């Protein structure tokens, strides 16, 4: 164990952890939203993310950009970023809707048992990621260096870069807007109603199918944003990027209390931080193990996660 290393690097580890955590948190929202409403682990959410991470790369590819391109000027960067975000959001959203349509809706129509949903989701996840895997020959795809990391400010040995700030701010803003939407808007209330009592919700005039689609869509949008951030931060993507990060996102969602939006944020940030600290303390190879140990410990003490379930709280 390397305590001195941890203490020495605490600042930098914190900021990189927060940035990673913000991505995880955005990703986790999709799990939490779907779970909150349908009580289903949407296993295919990882592929919603995956498609987003490729979509923006393809769009940037249209402009002839690849990992070896030079960083364009500021205006183009902003334009490209927006375009990439839009593309990722659209494709992630469409994927989420598609998954709902193909893997969930037919089962819902037949009122299938919950496990069946889990398995079709696994099937959809396999299908999408493997198809991408075959198409890309399981090779990595590099990301154009749209944002050259540059220190914005430095505290001690903690260098806070423009990219990290962008990621964290974007995550917080999306999160805040989503939270407002769910808690304040009429549609948001509809979502919560379906989560808490689907039959009653129908009796209030809520269109359940549309709400469910909306939930998948929202999860997809968030995953799309997360995917662009991920691409920029890590610099490559590959067919199983969704699967890997998906497990972490799912862990974060459960950690915070699955079904709870703020829980997803808390869980994501906590996980990002913890992984970095643990990697520094025990070695990078223990990074994932640490997050699972934390998860087990927290669930043993708080069986419904840190903040508990909220979207469908105390569903009868």
């Amino acid at each position, binding site marked *: 164990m390397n305590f001195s*290393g941890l203490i*020495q*690097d605490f600042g*930098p*580890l914190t900021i*990189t*952890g927060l940035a*990673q955590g913000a991505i995880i948190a955005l990703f986790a929202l999709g799990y939490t939203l779907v779970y909150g409403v349908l009580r289903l682990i949407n296993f295919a959410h990882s592929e919603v993310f995956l498609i987003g991470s490729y979509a923006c790369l393809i769009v940037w590819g249209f402009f002839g950009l690849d*990992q*070896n391109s030079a960083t364009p000027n500021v205006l183009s960067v902003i334009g490209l970023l927006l375009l990439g975000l839009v593309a990722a959001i659209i494709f992630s959203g469409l994927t989420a809707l598609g998954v709902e349509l193909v893997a969930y809706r037919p089962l819902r129509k037949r009122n299938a048992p919950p496990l069946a949903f889990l398995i079709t989701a696994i099937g959809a996840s396999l299908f999408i990621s493997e198809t991408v895997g075959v198409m890309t*020959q*399981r*090779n*990595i*795809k*590099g990301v154009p*260096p749209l944002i050259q*990391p540059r220190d914005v400010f430095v505290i001690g*040995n903690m*260098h806070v*870069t423009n*990219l990290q700030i962008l990621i964290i701010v974007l995550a917080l803003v999306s999160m805040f807007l989503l939270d407002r939407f769910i808690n304040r808007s009429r549609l948001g209330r509809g979502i919560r109603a379906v989560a808490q009592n689907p039959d009653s919700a129908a009796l209030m005039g809520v269109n359940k199918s549309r709400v469910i689609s909306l939930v998948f869509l929202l999860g997809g949008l968030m995953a799309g944003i997360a995917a662009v951030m991920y691409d920029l*931060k*890590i*610099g*490559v993507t*590959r067919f*199983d*990027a969704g699967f*890997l*990060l998906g497990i972490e996102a799912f862990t974060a969602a459960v950690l915070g209390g699955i079904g709870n939006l703020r829980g997803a944020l808390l869980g994501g940030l906590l996980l990002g931080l913890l*992984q*970095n600290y643990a*990697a*520094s303390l025990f*070695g*990078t*190879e223990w*990074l*994932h193990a640490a997050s699972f140990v934390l998860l087990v410990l927290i669930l043993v003490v708080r069986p419904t996660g840190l903040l508990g379930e909220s979207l469908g709280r105390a569903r009868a």
Partner: protein
Amino acid sequence: NSDSGSDDTASGNCGYKLAFFGALTGSSANLGVNIEQGFELAINQFNEKKGSDCITVAKFDSQGEPGVAPGVARNLVADKKILAVVGPPFSGESEAAVPIFEAAGIPSVSPSATRVSLTANGWKTFHRAVANDDAQGPAAANYIKDVMKAQKVFVANDQSAYGAGLSEVVQKTLGAAVVATDKTEADGKQTDFSALVQKVVSSQATVLFYGGYYQNAGLIRKALTSAGWKGTLVGGDGMKDVGLAKAAGNGPATGTIVTCPCSPPEKAGGTFVTDYKAKWNVDAGTYSDVAYDAANMLLQGIDAGNNTPEKLNTYLKTVEYKGIANTYKFTDTGELDPNFIKVWTFKFDPTGNQIADQEVPTA
């Protein structure tokens, strides 16, 4: 001569099969495909000379997984026309599959399984056309010490048998110059290396030696550059692949040093590099050249009338074959003769190619 291969009497030693055994699909397929393509190229060229299908290519997809390998290996040995195997590429699957080749008496030549212990199993039919980790490690360390003159070196590995073995040797050879170490998960299991990068930066090392494969190495190189680290990444043959530059971007990858227990193919003259590109429409990858050599060595043996696995195995015991990447001669245990072990370093240039740098001593 366009006689069909099945007409044994006409061309003497035709109608046999050579097998490739290794990952063609799955996450470890990259190396497998590199090797298979080199292997297949050699056979194609041979057949062009000898008759359209003198020697048939048989491919066996082990997925690179020790759990899958035995079943596939049993399938391989059931085909009595197979005289020898090129593969398995990975050390783990070799452990699982070679006992089955051994039981069937089929010789195998691995172009890339470098785990030291493989030749300690008492196998009679196993050969490797590449130096083991003990040879490459000291060379890499010597290069870091003597050529780069690095005072502070950070050593990390991906915990694969290959990467861990290599980095252990490097660490031992470098001794006090190693300021810190770390381990990562294997390729495809980890993408965020922030913590490792932070450690490297904080250690003030000027060289990071990474024992592992090119994907992780590329990601790490990119993250290091983003974090402003100015040092050099050094690694073994597992990183000698354009994939590293694809992951890192050509800019950050430039200057990265990889060692390889092989000579640059262009040194050997010949047209391998262009032939390969022409046939497969991609550049030759890691160990494509060694696989090509291994296949040619076997083909030469068959052509000389060694048309049973036993004969071919005996042939391998004595042959001294000069290929494009090396000259091959095997010891009793199947190890490459130490006299022929050459280790070269290669350097990534700004276009992502690995340019031969220099030959380095292995001791």
